[in-house]
């Protein structure tokens, strides 16, 4: 099993630059509007709880105020906003999510004596997702022909990580520079960092 992740950049926070030339008005406006996550409008409470559980397995967050992810997926589904691609093997995005959530719960029940995904402990949830990704399914009828790996990687994982890694907290933990307009960067070479970037990080393999 993998170790809990520790950031190489403790103490760095892109939001410290909020009032600096790295942030322009439109970026501040976008981030401000995202502080209050939109209300749940598309999924029902059980589906939403399942989605939240999935987000927590995909992105384990150990911070006091976790970055909200599920509300933004729900909002995009409510708005009918897609990605521009519908693979011919996949149903339309809304149906794909509804079917995929139901199928993951069905997989949990088939694999763990009738217990739903939300009732499982984290390591079992993760194990279940890995077998779904391998296409190793125990409730194949629940997927109704939708390829499990395609749903898992192209929709579920992709949307979760894209929401998470556009959040300032996630940018900070990987030492990314964050918003950079109008001020960009000056020092582009190895061993050089601008004063408004994260200081050099530390990794266990280099301790």
């Amino acid at each position, binding site marked *: 099993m*993998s*170790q*809990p*992740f520790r*950031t*190489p950049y403790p103490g760095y926070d892109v939001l410290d630059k909020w009032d600096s030339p790295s942030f*322009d008005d*439109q*970026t501040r*406006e*976008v*981030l401000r*509007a995202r502080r209050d996550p939109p209300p749940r409008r598309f999924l029902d409470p059980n589906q939403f709880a399942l989605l939240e559980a999935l987000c927590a*397995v*995909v*992105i*384990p967050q150990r911070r006091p105020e976790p970055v909200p992810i599920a509300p933004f997926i729900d909002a995009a589904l409510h708005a009918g*906003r897609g*990605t*521009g*691609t*519908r*693979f*011919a093997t996949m149903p339309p995005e809304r149906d794909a999510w509804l079917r995929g959530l139901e199928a993951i719960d069905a997989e949990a029940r088939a694999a763990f004596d009738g217990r739903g995904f939300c009732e499982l402990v984290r390591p079992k949830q*993760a194990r279940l997702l*890995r077998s779904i*990704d391998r296409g190793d399914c125990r409730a194949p009828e629940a997927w109704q022909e939708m390829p499990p*790996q395609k749903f898992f*990687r192209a929709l579920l*994982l*992709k949307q979760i*990580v*894209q*929401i*998470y*890694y*556009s959040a300032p907290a*996630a940018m900070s*933990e*990987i030492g*990314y*520079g*964050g*918003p*950079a*307009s*109008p*001020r*960009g*960067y*000056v*020092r*582009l*070479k*190895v061993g050089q*960092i601008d004063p408004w*970037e*994260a200081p050099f*990080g530390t*990794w266990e393999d280099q301790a």
Partner: protein
Amino acid sequence: MTQDAPRNDRPRAVNGHAPDVFKREGQVPMREYPKNAPVDFVIVGAGCGGSVLAAKLAEAGMSVVLFDAGPFFQPRRDFASDEREQEKLYWLDPRISDGDDPIELGANNSGRAVGGSSVHFQMVSLRFRPEWFKARSKLGYGRDWPVDWREMWRYYDEVEEALKISGPIRYPWGPDRGRYPYREHEVNEAGLVLARGAEALGVDWAPTPLCTVSAPSGKSPPCAYRGMCKIGCSINAKQSMLITYVPRAIKAGAEVRDLAMVGRIETGADGRATGVSYYRDGKWRFQKAENVVAAGYSIETPRLLLNSSTAQHPQGLGNADGLVGRNLMVHANDAVWGEFDEEIRWYKGPPSMATCEHWNYADDDPSKNFDGGYSFMSQGPLPGDFAGTLTSSTGMFGDDLLEAMGRYNRMAGLKMVGESMPQVDNRVTLADETDELGLPRAKVTHSFCDNDRRLQGHGRKFMSRMMRAAGGKNLFETQSTAHLMGGCPMGDDPETSVTDDMGRVWNVDNLWICDGSLMPTGGGVNPAMTILANAARIADRIIDARFD
């Protein structure tokens, strides 16, 4: 954004004014044309092809209306440093993607805004290798272009000058091209990884010629190396169509209609085009025209021609031989990623500051087991983009993913732009379902052939060697596609092409195409400069024909 309707919901080029793209607020005057009197040219799509054509025809005194389905942005006010917000630049309406190797659309290859995909393109500005314009007769694969490379070379000069391409004094491959209008950019560390690897393997590399200025130009400041080119340049250093040819077109008297989706090209009893039906501000409308140009790129242009069928053109316009939508091509975008001991910080600077075109020119290398060529560039994906690459290629999640992303600053990558062969079965057709406006959606069918796969395998192997030679560790490979080319190839023979050498659709003499869909082959370089040069050439041909 807020609870109100987003700001990009209503047309902005109205009442005799267009947004001033160089300001946060403010407008510039714009001429408007009546709908019921025919304009000389209606152009559908304000991307690379459409904008160049509009500017040059308007400057030659013709009346032009340039339509785009997308909004008219003011970068300094509308473009945030935020990957999710900037999804508004893409064509997100679903298309159906089928075939053995279905391609990802949307953000991957399709813009939807005044300026088209150039608003979020990555600015790599390369020329075709001369022989590729006669790939069939000189190199034995693909198709010939109905154009001589020397003519194209002159038009590359023209558009590179107009866009102030910043590039090296001496470019290592191909015939001499003089110096680029602006000096090259300082190469970032991610690019120097490629440089080190190339030197270790004994092949050439070059600072990438880029479509962002290295010194002030007009109202553009120099590139600030903020690295967000793929989500739109908020400071206007990037020379996209939105801030170059579109303002030029407006200044010369063209009208731009933003948020105006053209649903049909209308034709009369004689089979000739009479104008376009378009949806804007809640209503279907009709604009009369002497000539109509489709410039919606390789999916929307075929879709529009197919959606414009009549009793006289039962299979759609220009499609009597069933060629519209066929020979659609992509570039293989396979990549190799590696980890370094030091922090590379690839987010600084445009994403692809160094390039290697070795395999576009190495015909005699004994290891070359494929037709066509490929180039590759250094990489600098934004975090959300890179996380998506990791999860879609490996399925990783949880702490493994957090840990892998925790090495973001120590990563570097090499990614290829690999030629794929034109194949008749790779194509755009109409799906059974319709979009919100009632227009049949596009269905895209795509499969690679054996040659394509050999080329990709060769590229991954070579890039891995180079990555290792540069000091990269824990390498992993990913596969994807980029760019669209073809779909309505031009040619000399009506039986095998959709248009003649100036983009005129065979048998409908006032209907034209001017965008990436004309490309008979894709080459092993990013396509924008070739699309721009070809559009500049077509514009001159139209102007010459008219005033002769």
